[in-house]
C-alpha cells in the first residue's frame, strides 16, 4: 500500500514508523523545516508508555531515555502547598520527541519531505498516486476542512483563555497554581519536561483576561504580566515565549474519521480527528494511540482497506469520546473554579483531583492514602492526631438541632399508588421500612398530597385530614425502628394530577372519576392531558392554607424532614417556570408564600427541605443561573436543604442520563447559593457518594435501589 501522510507531528511521524515496519510505502509531507516546533513539553502516562513499548521497542527506548518522570502533583492554593502523591506521569520536550520519531522514520525508509506546504487550491496534489492519504495535519487540518461535510466536523470552543509558555526551570513535579487577582482568578498548569525547562500554561476567564487588558497587549507585554503575576513561584527564572499568544481552546469532533475522495481513502488521525482540553494532558497520547490503532487495523485486515478503516474508527471513536467527556468536565471545572475559593485546602485539592471523574475517592485512596486521610479528617471536622475517621458517606449530618442523619445516603420509597382516599396503610409502612433497612439514613415517601385535588393518581397518599396523620405516624414509627429518618414529600400535582396509575406510562388522564386540575395558567401538560383551571387568589389561598395544615399533621405524625416539592412539573414548579407561568414577573412569590405557611406550621427544630427544579432543561425555561437565585431565596425563606432536581416542567425536556448527570447542577447550587444540597441523577456506587461529598459538590446523595450497583463501572484513565 502507498500511504501519503500530511503532517509531521507525533501522529504522522509515528504512523510513518509503524507503517514502514509493516512494509508499506510511506511519503510524509510537513510544512515546517525539521526541528521547528511550537509548544514545549508533552505528557505521557504510564499506560501510554506501555502502548509505545509494544508498538515499536526501538522508539520506546529512545523516548524512555529522554523522559522526565514525576509522581506527585503540587497544588498552590490560598497560601498553602498541598502535595498529592502516587500519580505516575512523564514528559518529554516536544522537539526531542519529534526528532527521535523523524530519525526512526527515516531509518526505516520513509520518504520524508519537510518545508513542503500543501497547496490551498488542491491539497490532494502532493499525494497523487497514494492509496491512502492520512490527514495528520493538526487541529486546523486543511485536508479535513476540504472534506468537512464528509467527516461531519464539529467545533466547540471553551469559555476560557489560555496561553502556552515555557519556563527556564525544571519544576519538581506537576504544579497547579491558583492566583486570585483584582481582575479575577488566574491558574497555571505546569510540569517539567527536561532537566532545565517546564511547560507553563496560564489560563483565566475571558472576563478576567479583558479586565487585565490582556486582549490588547503585545506578546511581550502579556509575557511580562504573567512573569510578574507568578514571580513568587518563578523566583529568578524566566517565562519563555514561542508564538505564545492567548487562545481559546476548541474541541474538535468528527462524525466519520475516514472518507473517499476521488478513489483515494482519506483518514484522520491525532488533532485533525479530535482534540481534548489540555487540562487532562492527553493530546499526544491520543495521537500516538491513533497511529497504533490504524497500523494494527491494516495488520488485522490485510488487503481490505475499507474494513481496516472501519475497524480503526470503531476501535478509537468510543475511547476518544470518553476522553472528550472527561476533558469537557475538566475544562468546565477550570471555568468555574472561582466558586470553590472558599473551600479549605484539603477539599479544594480533592475537588481538583477528582474534577473529571477519572479519579474517585476510592482510587485516590489507593494512590495517596495520606491526602485522603487529611480530606476525610477535615470532612468530619477532626483535627490531628485523630487518624481513624469514617469515609465521608458515613459521616453524620446534623440537619437541625433535633435531627441528625447517621450517614449521607437518601433513598426514596417505591411509588405504590396504593392509598385509599389518601390514607397510607401497611403497604406504605412495610415498603418504607424496607428502604430504611437498606441502611440509608433518610427515607423519602412518594408524592403526598396536601389536598385531595393535588394527588397524582387516585392511589396517591395524602395528608389532608387527621385520619391520614395516624397512618403516617405508623409509617414514621416503623422507619424509626429500622434506624432511619423519614422525609415526607409534600406534593400538589397541579396540572399533572388526575392521572391513571403509572405502571404503563406517565400523565395518562383518568378516563372517568377524575378531578379538576389547577395550575398558574390554563395550559395542559401534554396534548392529551386535562386542561387545568388558572388559580385565582381564593384558590391559591386555600391551597396555601392546606399546605400549612398538612405540615402540621406531618409534624404530629413524627415525620423528621418535610420536603416541599417545587419540582417535576408539579404545582409549585409550574409557578416558578416561565414556560408554565408566563407573564408573571414574580413567579416565585406564591411558592415562597407556601414555604412561609409550611415554615410557620412546622416545628422550628425540625429540618425543612425544598425539592427545587433548578433547571428546566428547555429553551425559554429556568436555567441553572435562575436555580441559584431561587435556592438563595428559598434558603432565606427557611429551607435548610435543597433537593436539586431538573426537567419535567414540560414533558419533553430530556437530560443525557449519564452517570451523575445532575451533579454539575447540584454543585453550582450548593457553591454559588451557599445552601446544603441533596443530589440524585444516576449515582450507583458508594465510591461516587464519597467522591461527591469530599469534593464539596453536595451534602447528601440520593441512591435508587433499581440502579444501585448496576450498570457498567466508570471507565478509563
Amino acid at each position: 500500500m502507498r500511504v501519503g501522510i500530511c503532517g509531521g507531528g507525533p501522529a504522522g511521524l509515528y504512523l510513518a514508523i509503524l507503517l514502514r515496519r509493516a512494509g508499506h510505502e510511506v511519503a510524509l509531507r510537513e510544512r515546517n523545516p525539521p526541528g521547528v516546533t511550537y509548544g514545549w513539553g508533552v505528557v505521557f502516562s504510564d499506560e501510554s508508555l506501555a502502548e509505545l513499548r509494544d508498538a515499536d521497542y526501538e522508539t520506546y527506548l529512545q523516548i524512555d531515555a529522554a523522559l522526565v518522570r514525576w509522581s506527585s502533583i503540587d497544588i498552590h492554593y490560598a497560601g498553602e502547598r498541598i502535595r498529592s502523591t502516587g500519580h505516575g506521569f512523564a514528559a518529554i520536550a516536544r522537539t526531542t520527541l519529534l526528532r527521535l520519531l523523524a530519525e526512526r522514520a527515516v531509518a526505516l525508509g520513509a520518504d520524508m519531505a519537510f518545508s513542503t506546504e500543501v497547496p490551498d487550491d488542491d491539497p490532494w496534489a502532493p499525494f497523487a498516486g497514494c492509496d491512502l492519504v492520512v490527514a495528520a495535519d493538526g487541529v486546523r487540518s486543511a485536508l479535513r476542512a476540504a472534506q468537512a461535510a464528509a467527516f461531519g466536523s464539529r467545533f466547540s470552543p471553551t469559555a476560557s483563555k489560555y496561553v502556552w509558555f515555557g519556563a527556564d526551570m525544571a519544576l519538581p513535579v506537576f504544579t497547579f497554581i491558583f492566583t486570585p487577582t483584582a481582575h479575577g482568578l488566574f491558574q497555571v498548569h505546569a510540569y517539567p519536561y527536561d532537566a532545565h525547562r517546564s511547560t507553563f500554561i496560564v489560563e483565566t476567564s475571558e472576563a478576567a483576561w479583558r479586565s487585565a487588558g490582556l486582549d490588547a497587549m503585545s506578546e511581550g507585554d502579556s509575557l511580562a504580566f504573567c512573569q510578574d503575576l507568578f514571580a513568587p513561584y518563578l523566583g529568578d527564572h524566566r517565562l519563555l515565549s514561542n508564538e505564545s499568544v492567548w487562545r481559546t481552546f476548541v474541541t474538535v469532533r468528527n462524525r466519520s474519521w475516514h472518507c473517499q475522495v476521488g478513489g483515494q481513502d482519506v483518514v484522520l488521525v491525532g488533532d485533525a480527528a479530535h482534540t481534548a482540553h489540555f487540562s487532562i494532558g492527553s493530546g499526544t497520547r491520543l495521537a500516538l494511540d491513533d497511529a497504533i490503532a490504524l497500523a494494527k487495523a491494516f495488520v488485522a485486515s490485510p488487503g481490505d482497506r475499507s474494513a481496516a478503516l472501519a475497524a480503526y474508527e470503531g476501535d478509537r471513536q468510543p475511547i476518544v469520546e470518553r476522553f472528550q467527556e472527561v476533558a469537557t468536565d475538566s475544562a468546565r471545572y477550570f471555568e468555574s473554579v472561582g466558586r470553590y475559593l472558599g473551600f479549605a485546602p484539603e477539599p479544594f485539592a480533592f475537588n481538583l483531583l477528582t474534577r473529571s471523574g477519572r479519579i474517585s475517592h476510592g482510587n485516590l485512596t489507593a494512590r495517596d492514602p495520606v491526602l485522603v486521610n487529611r480530606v476525610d479528617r477535615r470532612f468530619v471536622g477532626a483535627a490531628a492526631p485523630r487518624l481513624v475517621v469514617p469515609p465521608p458517606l458515613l459521616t453524620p449530618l446534623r440537619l437541625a438541632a433535633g435531627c441528625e442523619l447517621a450517614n449521607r445516603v437518601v433513598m426514596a420509597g417505591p411509588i405504590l399508588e396504593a392509598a385509599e382516599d389518601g390514607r397510607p396503610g401497611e403497604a406504605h409502612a412495610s415498603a418504607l421500612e424496607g428502604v430504611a433497612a437498606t441502611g440509608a439514613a433518610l427515607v423519602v415517601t412518594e408524592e403526598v398530597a396536601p389536598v385531595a385535588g393535588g394527588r397524582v393518581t387516585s392511589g396517591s397518599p395524602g395528608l389532608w385530614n387527621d385520619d391520614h396523620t395516624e397512618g403516617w405516624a405508623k409509617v414514621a414509627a416503623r422507619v424509626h425502628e429500622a434506624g432511619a429518618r423519614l422525609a415526607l414529600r409534600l406534593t400538589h400535582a397541579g396540572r399533572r394530577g388526575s392521572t391513571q396509575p403509572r405502571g404503563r406510562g406517565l400523565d395518562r388522564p383518568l378516563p372517568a372519576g377524575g378531578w379538576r386540575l389547577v395550575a398558574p395558567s390554563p395550559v395542559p401538560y401534554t396534548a392529551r392531558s386535562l386542561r387545568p383551571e388558572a388559580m385565582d387568589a381564593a384558590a391559591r389561598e386555600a391551597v396555601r392554607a392546606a399546605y400549612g395544615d398538612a405540615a402540621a399533621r406531618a409534624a404530629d405524625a413524627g415525620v423528621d424532614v418535610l420536603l416541599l416539592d417545587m419540582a417535576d412539573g408539579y404545582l409549585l414548579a409550574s409557578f416558578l417556570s416561565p414556560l408554565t407561568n408566563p407573564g408573571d414577573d414574580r413567579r416565585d412569590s406564591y411558592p415562597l408564600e407556601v414555604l412561609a405557611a409550611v415554615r410557620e406550621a412546622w416545628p422550628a427544630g425540625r429540618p425543612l427541605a425544598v425539592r427545587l427544579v433548578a433547571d428546566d432543561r428547555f429553551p425559554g425555561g429556568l436555567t441553572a443561573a435562575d436555580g441559584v437565585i431561587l435556592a438563595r431565596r428559598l434558603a432565606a425563606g427557611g429551607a435548610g436543604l435543597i433537593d436539586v432536581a431538573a426537567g419535567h416542567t414540560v414533558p419533553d425536556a430530556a437530560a443525557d442520563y449519564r452517570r451523575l448527570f445532575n451533579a454539575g447542577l447540584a454543585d453550582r447550587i450548593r457553591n454559588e447559593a451557599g445552601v446544603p444540597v441533596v443530589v440524585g441523577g444516576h449515582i450507583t456506587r458508594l465510591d461516587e457518594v464519597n467522591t461527591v461529598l469530599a469534593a464539596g459538590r453536595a451534602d447528601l446523595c440520593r441512591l435508587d435501589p433499581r440502579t444501585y450497583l448496576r450498570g457498567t463501572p466508570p471507565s478509563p484513565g
Partner: protein
Amino acid sequence: MRIGVGLPTSTPPSGPRHRGPELLTWATRAEAGPFASLGVTDRLVYDCTDPMVALAAAAAVTTRLRLVTMVVIGPIRPAAVLAAQAASLDALSGGRVTLGVSLGARHDDYDAAGADWRSRGRYLSDELAAMRDIWEGTSVGPRPASPGGPDLLVGGGSGPAFLRAARHADGYVHGGGPPRAFASAAERARAAWVDAGRPGEPQLWGQSYFSLADPDAGADYLRHYYAFTGPFAERVAAGLLDSPKAVREQVAGYAEGGCDELVLLPATSDPSELDRLADALA
C-alpha cells in the same frame, strides 16, 4: 437472558424472486428451536416485507414465539392504524406481541409515506400515548389479547429517546453494537426511568446481526442495507457475528450488560442458519 431470532424480511431471498414461503419455513423452524421470539425490522424504501404482515404470517404457523418489531418506524404510520394493526396481530396470536417503535433514521421513508420529518419526535411521543389509550378503549380496532395491549418498547440512543421510553413504554430496545454500547445505553434507559418517576423497571432488549455459513454474503447485505449511513455501514458489517464463538461472546456480553432479551437478526436468508445458530447457543 432470553434469545430471540429475526425473520429474514429484508435479506436477498434465496428463492427466484420473492421471499414468501421461506419466511414461513423460517418461522416454523424457529418455533422448534431454542428461541423466545421472532423479530422483524422496518424499512419502507427498500425490498423489505412489511413487518406487521410478516409477523401476522408467522403468527399463523407458530404458537409459542413472541412476535417482536425491532423496530417499526412509528411516525410514518398514523397512530390509530398502527394501534389497530398491533391489536389485530396481538388478538390473532393470542397475546404474543411486543411492539418496538422508534423514529428511524431515514428521510426517504418519511417522504415515501408522506409523513412529516421535522415533527417526528413530538409525533412519536403522542403516538405511543395514543396507542395505549386505543388498546385500553373500545372505539378503534379490535380488542387485543394482552390486557391493555402489547408491551411497548422504544428505540433510539438520545436523551429524548430514553425519556420517551420512560414516559410511555414498557422498556427500551437498543439498536445494536458491541456489549459495551448496549450496557451504556441500557444504563441510561434505567437512569431516565428512575428520573422520570416511573415505577418498576424497564424491559431491556438488544439486537445483533449474525451470518454463520456465509459471513461474506451477510456483510455484503449489511453494507447494502446500511449504505445510507455512509462509512458507518462498514462498522455495522464489522460487527456481524460470523462464528459460533462470536455469537457466544455477544450473548455473554449482553447478559452481563443486563439485557432481558437479545434478538439475533439474520443477515442471510438460508433457514439452515437457524440450526447453526441453535448449535452455537447450545
